[in-house]
Protein backbone atom coordinates (compact mmCIF):
# COMPACT_ATOMS: atom_id res chain seq x y z
CA UNK A 1 0.00 0.00 0.00
CA UNK A 2 1.42 3.35 -1.07
CA UNK A 3 2.49 5.74 1.68
CA UNK A 4 0.50 8.92 2.29
CA UNK A 5 2.57 10.53 5.03
CA UNK A 6 1.12 14.03 4.56
CA UNK A 7 -2.31 12.62 5.41
CA UNK A 8 -1.18 10.36 8.27
CA UNK A 9 0.76 13.17 9.94
CA UNK A 10 -2.21 15.53 9.66
CA UNK A 11 -4.62 13.05 11.26
CA UNK A 12 -2.07 12.25 13.97
CA UNK A 13 -1.67 15.96 14.75
CA UNK A 14 -5.43 16.32 14.90
CA UNK A 15 -5.53 13.39 17.36
CA UNK A 16 -2.92 15.19 19.48
CA UNK A 17 -5.02 18.36 19.47
CA UNK A 18 -8.25 16.46 20.19
CA UNK A 19 -7.24 13.94 22.86
CA UNK A 20 -10.83 13.06 23.78
CA UNK A 21 -11.63 11.78 20.27
CA UNK A 22 -10.69 8.15 19.63
CA UNK A 23 -8.77 7.93 16.33
CA UNK A 24 -7.44 4.90 14.47
CA UNK A 25 -5.18 5.23 11.40
CA UNK A 26 -4.17 2.81 8.64
CA UNK A 27 -0.79 3.98 7.36
CA UNK A 28 0.31 1.51 4.66
CA UNK A 29 4.00 1.68 3.87
CA UNK A 30 4.44 5.21 5.17
CA UNK A 31 7.62 6.29 6.95
CA UNK A 32 5.78 8.45 9.51
CA UNK A 33 4.38 6.48 12.43
CA UNK A 34 1.58 8.14 14.43
CA UNK A 35 2.43 9.10 18.01
CA UNK A 36 -0.98 10.22 19.22
CA UNK A 37 -3.29 7.53 17.85
CA UNK A 38 -3.18 3.74 17.50
CA UNK A 39 -2.45 2.60 13.96
CA UNK A 40 -2.05 -0.42 11.67
CA UNK A 41 0.06 -0.81 8.55
CA UNK A 42 -2.77 -2.57 6.75
CA UNK A 43 -5.89 -3.98 8.36
CA UNK A 44 -7.56 -7.19 7.27
CA UNK A 45 -10.56 -6.33 5.12
CA UNK A 46 -13.01 -7.53 7.78
CA UNK A 47 -11.41 -5.37 10.50
CA UNK A 48 -11.34 -2.37 8.15
CA UNK A 49 -15.02 -2.89 7.53
CA UNK A 50 -15.85 -3.20 11.25
CA UNK A 51 -13.93 -0.05 12.08
CA UNK A 52 -15.62 1.78 9.21
CA UNK A 53 -19.05 0.62 10.41
CA UNK A 54 -18.31 1.77 13.95
CA UNK A 55 -16.84 5.21 13.23
CA UNK A 56 -18.68 8.52 13.17
CA UNK A 57 -16.30 10.14 10.65
CA UNK A 58 -14.42 8.31 7.90
CA UNK A 59 -11.31 10.20 6.74
CA UNK A 60 -9.41 8.81 3.74
CA UNK A 61 -7.63 9.43 0.44
CA UNK A 62 -9.79 9.80 -2.67
CA UNK A 63 -9.51 6.10 -3.50
CA UNK A 64 -12.40 4.10 -4.91
CA UNK A 65 -12.01 1.40 -2.27
CA UNK A 66 -12.64 4.02 0.40
CA UNK A 67 -15.46 5.73 -1.50
CA UNK A 68 -17.31 2.52 -2.44
CA UNK A 69 -17.07 1.04 1.04
CA UNK A 70 -18.01 4.35 2.66
CA UNK A 71 -21.10 4.56 0.43
CA UNK A 72 -21.98 0.93 1.13
CA UNK A 73 -21.94 1.75 4.86
CA UNK A 74 -23.65 5.12 4.49
CA UNK A 75 -20.84 6.96 6.31
CA UNK A 76 -19.97 10.60 6.07
CA UNK A 77 -16.58 10.84 4.35
CA UNK A 78 -13.87 13.46 4.45
CA UNK A 79 -11.38 12.86 1.64
CA UNK A 80 -8.06 14.39 0.62
CA UNK A 81 -6.58 13.49 -2.78
CA UNK A 82 -3.12 12.02 -3.14
CA UNK A 83 -1.00 14.12 -5.44
CA UNK A 84 1.24 12.80 -8.14
CA UNK A 85 3.45 15.90 -8.01
CA UNK A 86 4.22 15.12 -4.35
CA UNK A 87 5.01 11.48 -5.16
CA UNK A 88 1.86 10.24 -3.43
CA UNK A 89 0.53 8.24 -6.39
CA UNK A 90 1.46 7.13 -9.89
CA UNK A 91 -0.84 9.65 -11.63
CA UNK A 92 -3.10 12.62 -10.78
CA UNK A 93 -6.26 10.51 -11.10
CA UNK A 94 -7.34 11.16 -7.51
CA UNK A 95 -7.93 14.79 -8.45
CA UNK A 96 -10.21 13.56 -11.27
CA UNK A 97 -12.03 11.18 -8.94
CA UNK A 98 -12.42 14.06 -6.49
CA UNK A 99 -14.04 16.20 -9.19
CA UNK A 100 -16.52 13.40 -10.00
CA UNK A 101 -17.48 12.43 -6.46
CA UNK A 102 -17.10 15.69 -4.52
CA UNK A 103 -20.75 16.64 -4.98
CA UNK A 104 -22.25 13.41 -3.71
CA UNK A 105 -24.19 13.68 -0.45
CA UNK A 106 -22.10 12.60 2.51
CA UNK A 107 -18.76 13.34 0.83
CA UNK A 108 -16.55 16.35 1.49
CA UNK A 109 -13.26 16.79 -0.33
CA UNK A 110 -10.46 19.01 0.95
CA UNK A 111 -7.34 20.11 -0.85
CA UNK A 112 -4.79 20.46 1.90
CA UNK A 113 -3.84 19.69 5.48
CA UNK A 114 -5.18 22.84 7.19
CA UNK A 115 -8.57 22.26 5.54
CA UNK A 116 -8.47 18.61 6.50
CA UNK A 117 -7.94 19.37 10.17
CA UNK A 118 -10.58 22.11 10.21
CA UNK A 119 -13.16 19.88 8.55
CA UNK A 120 -12.42 16.97 10.89
CA UNK A 121 -13.30 19.20 13.83
CA UNK A 122 -16.36 20.58 12.09
CA UNK A 123 -17.80 17.26 10.87
CA UNK A 124 -17.48 15.60 14.28
CA UNK A 125 -19.90 18.23 15.61
CA UNK A 126 -22.01 18.80 12.51
CA UNK A 127 -22.10 15.60 10.46
CA UNK A 128 -22.87 15.76 6.76
CA UNK A 129 -26.22 14.51 5.59
CA UNK A 130 -25.51 11.23 3.82
CA UNK A 131 -27.37 9.88 0.81
CA UNK A 132 -29.05 6.49 0.55
CA UNK A 133 -26.79 3.58 1.41
CA UNK A 134 -25.80 1.94 -1.87
CA UNK A 135 -26.10 -1.76 -2.66
CA UNK A 136 -22.98 -3.90 -2.83
CA UNK A 137 -23.44 -4.45 -6.57
CA UNK A 138 -22.39 -2.77 -9.79
CA UNK A 139 -24.98 -1.14 -12.06
CA UNK A 140 -27.31 -3.61 -13.83
CA UNK A 141 -25.79 -2.56 -17.16
CA UNK A 142 -22.27 -3.53 -16.16
CA UNK A 143 -23.40 -6.82 -14.58
CA UNK A 144 -25.34 -7.67 -17.77
CA UNK A 145 -22.43 -6.67 -20.00
CA UNK A 146 -19.96 -8.86 -18.11
CA UNK A 147 -22.43 -11.77 -18.04
CA UNK A 148 -22.92 -11.46 -21.80
CA UNK A 149 -19.17 -11.33 -22.39
CA UNK A 150 -18.75 -14.46 -20.28
CA UNK A 151 -21.53 -16.23 -22.11
CA UNK A 152 -19.67 -15.75 -25.36
CA UNK A 153 -16.43 -16.89 -23.71
CA UNK A 154 -17.93 -20.24 -22.69
CA UNK A 155 -16.06 -23.12 -24.31
CA UNK A 156 -18.15 -24.74 -27.05
CA UNK A 157 -18.38 -28.51 -26.90
Amino acid sequence: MLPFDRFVRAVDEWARDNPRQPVFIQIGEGAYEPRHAPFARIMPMTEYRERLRGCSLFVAHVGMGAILQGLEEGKQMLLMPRRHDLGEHTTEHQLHTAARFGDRPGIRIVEDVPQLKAEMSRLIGEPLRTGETISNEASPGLIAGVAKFLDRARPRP
Partner: protein
Amino acid sequence: MARQPRLLAAASGGGHWVELLRIRRAFAGWDVAYVSMFDNYVSAVPGARYYTVPDASRFDKIAFFKVALKALRITFKERPDAIVTTGSAPMLWFLLFGRLVGAKSLWIDSIAQAEEMSSSGRIAKKLATATVAQWPEVACAEGVECWGAVL
Protein backbone atom coordinates in the same frame (compact mmCIF):
# COMPACT_ATOMS: atom_id res chain seq x y z
CA MET B 1 -22.02 -33.57 -18.30
CA ALA B 2 -19.64 -30.84 -19.42
CA ARG B 3 -17.42 -29.37 -16.73
CA GLN B 4 -18.25 -25.94 -15.39
CA PRO B 5 -16.31 -23.29 -17.34
CA ARG B 6 -13.45 -21.75 -15.39
CA LEU B 7 -13.05 -18.05 -14.73
CA LEU B 8 -10.04 -16.24 -13.34
CA ALA B 9 -11.12 -12.97 -11.69
CA ALA B 10 -8.17 -10.74 -10.81
CA ALA B 11 -7.68 -7.33 -9.20
CA SER B 12 -4.96 -5.44 -7.34
CA GLY B 13 -5.50 -4.59 -3.69
CA GLY B 14 -7.71 -1.75 -2.49
CA GLY B 15 -10.25 -0.16 -4.80
CA HIS B 16 -9.63 -2.51 -7.72
CA TRP B 17 -10.56 -5.45 -5.51
CA VAL B 18 -13.69 -3.74 -4.20
CA GLU B 19 -14.70 -3.01 -7.80
CA LEU B 20 -14.22 -6.67 -8.75
CA LEU B 21 -16.37 -7.85 -5.84
CA ARG B 22 -19.17 -5.59 -7.00
CA ILE B 23 -19.52 -7.42 -10.34
CA ARG B 24 -19.55 -10.93 -8.86
CA ARG B 25 -23.18 -11.64 -9.74
CA ALA B 26 -22.13 -11.75 -13.41
CA PHE B 27 -19.94 -14.78 -12.57
CA ALA B 28 -22.92 -17.06 -11.82
CA GLY B 29 -22.52 -20.45 -13.49
CA TRP B 30 -18.72 -20.19 -13.57
CA ASP B 31 -16.14 -21.95 -11.46
CA VAL B 32 -14.28 -18.87 -10.20
CA ALA B 33 -10.72 -18.53 -8.94
CA TYR B 34 -9.78 -15.10 -7.57
CA VAL B 35 -6.43 -13.31 -7.60
CA SER B 36 -5.40 -10.27 -5.56
CA MET B 37 -2.52 -9.15 -3.35
CA PHE B 38 -3.37 -9.76 0.31
CA ASP B 39 -3.97 -13.11 2.06
CA ASN B 40 -6.80 -11.78 4.19
CA TYR B 41 -8.95 -10.98 1.13
CA VAL B 42 -9.81 -14.69 0.98
CA SER B 43 -12.52 -13.96 3.56
CA ALA B 44 -14.43 -11.99 0.90
CA VAL B 45 -14.71 -14.98 -1.45
CA PRO B 46 -15.60 -18.01 0.70
CA GLY B 47 -15.59 -21.30 -1.16
CA ALA B 48 -13.61 -20.01 -4.13
CA ARG B 49 -9.98 -20.70 -4.91
CA TYR B 50 -7.89 -17.65 -4.05
CA TYR B 51 -4.33 -16.76 -5.07
CA THR B 52 -2.10 -13.81 -4.29
CA VAL B 53 0.54 -12.04 -6.33
CA PRO B 54 3.11 -9.64 -4.78
CA ASP B 55 1.93 -6.11 -4.00
CA ALA B 56 3.31 -4.21 -6.96
CA SER B 57 0.81 -1.37 -7.19
CA ARG B 58 3.53 1.24 -6.83
CA PHE B 59 6.77 2.44 -8.31
CA ASP B 60 8.48 -0.92 -8.10
CA LYS B 61 9.79 -2.55 -11.28
CA ILE B 62 11.26 -5.65 -9.60
CA ALA B 63 7.96 -6.48 -7.92
CA PHE B 64 6.27 -6.08 -11.29
CA PHE B 65 8.35 -8.92 -12.71
CA LYS B 66 7.83 -11.05 -9.62
CA VAL B 67 4.13 -10.73 -10.35
CA ALA B 68 4.83 -12.04 -13.86
CA LEU B 69 6.29 -15.29 -12.55
CA LYS B 70 3.43 -15.84 -10.16
CA ALA B 71 0.84 -14.91 -12.78
CA LEU B 72 2.35 -17.40 -15.20
CA ARG B 73 2.12 -20.19 -12.62
CA ILE B 74 -1.46 -19.33 -11.68
CA THR B 75 -2.62 -19.09 -15.29
CA PHE B 76 -1.16 -22.47 -16.26
CA LYS B 77 -2.48 -24.13 -13.10
CA GLU B 78 -5.99 -22.77 -13.59
CA ARG B 79 -6.15 -22.87 -17.40
CA PRO B 80 -9.19 -20.57 -17.32
CA ASP B 81 -11.69 -20.26 -20.17
CA ALA B 82 -12.16 -16.58 -19.31
CA ILE B 83 -10.35 -13.86 -17.39
CA VAL B 84 -11.94 -10.72 -15.95
CA THR B 85 -9.89 -7.98 -14.31
CA THR B 86 -10.56 -4.52 -12.93
CA GLY B 87 -6.82 -3.67 -12.98
CA SER B 88 -4.33 -2.38 -12.16
CA ALA B 89 -1.09 -2.66 -14.18
CA PRO B 90 0.27 -5.89 -12.61
CA MET B 91 -2.90 -7.70 -13.74
CA LEU B 92 -1.93 -7.08 -17.38
CA TRP B 93 0.20 -10.22 -17.07
CA PHE B 94 -2.93 -12.33 -16.82
CA LEU B 95 -4.18 -10.92 -20.12
CA LEU B 96 -0.89 -11.81 -21.76
CA PHE B 97 -0.60 -15.31 -20.29
CA GLY B 98 -4.32 -15.87 -20.78
CA ARG B 99 -3.71 -15.71 -24.50
CA LEU B 100 -1.30 -18.63 -24.19
CA VAL B 101 -4.02 -20.85 -22.73
CA GLY B 102 -6.73 -19.60 -25.09
CA ALA B 103 -8.76 -17.68 -22.50
CA LYS B 104 -11.10 -14.88 -23.52
CA SER B 105 -10.25 -11.84 -21.42
CA LEU B 106 -12.00 -8.65 -20.28
CA TRP B 107 -10.33 -5.54 -18.86
CA ILE B 108 -12.64 -3.19 -16.96
CA ASP B 109 -10.86 0.13 -16.49
CA SER B 110 -11.30 1.53 -12.97
CA ILE B 111 -14.08 3.95 -12.13
CA ALA B 112 -11.27 6.07 -10.65
CA GLN B 113 -10.21 6.79 -14.24
CA ALA B 114 -12.79 9.54 -14.64
CA GLU B 115 -10.99 11.76 -17.16
CA GLU B 116 -8.98 9.40 -19.31
CA MET B 117 -8.30 5.71 -19.66
CA SER B 118 -5.42 4.43 -17.52
CA SER B 119 -2.14 3.74 -19.30
CA SER B 120 -2.66 0.10 -18.33
CA GLY B 121 -6.08 0.18 -19.97
CA ARG B 122 -4.47 1.36 -23.18
CA ILE B 123 -2.13 -1.63 -23.10
CA ALA B 124 -5.07 -3.87 -22.23
CA LYS B 125 -6.79 -2.80 -25.45
CA LYS B 126 -4.02 -4.62 -27.33
CA LEU B 127 -4.03 -7.73 -25.12
CA ALA B 128 -7.60 -8.38 -24.00
CA THR B 129 -10.50 -9.80 -25.99
CA ALA B 130 -12.54 -6.81 -24.80
CA THR B 131 -11.78 -3.63 -22.90
CA VAL B 132 -14.40 -1.35 -21.36
CA ALA B 133 -14.38 1.94 -19.45
CA GLN B 134 -16.82 2.97 -16.72
CA TRP B 135 -17.36 6.56 -17.83
CA PRO B 136 -19.07 7.11 -21.23
CA GLU B 137 -16.78 10.03 -22.11
CA VAL B 138 -13.66 8.00 -21.37
CA ALA B 139 -14.98 5.05 -23.39
CA CYS B 140 -15.90 7.31 -26.30
CA ALA B 141 -12.46 8.97 -26.38
CA GLU B 142 -10.77 5.54 -26.40
CA GLY B 143 -13.08 3.87 -28.90
CA VAL B 144 -14.18 1.23 -26.39
CA GLU B 145 -17.58 0.40 -24.92
CA CYS B 146 -19.08 1.49 -21.64
CA TRP B 147 -21.61 -0.98 -20.20
CA GLY B 148 -22.11 0.78 -16.89
CA ALA B 149 -20.14 1.29 -13.70
CA VAL B 150 -19.48 -0.50 -10.44
CA LEU B 151 -21.58 2.18 -8.77
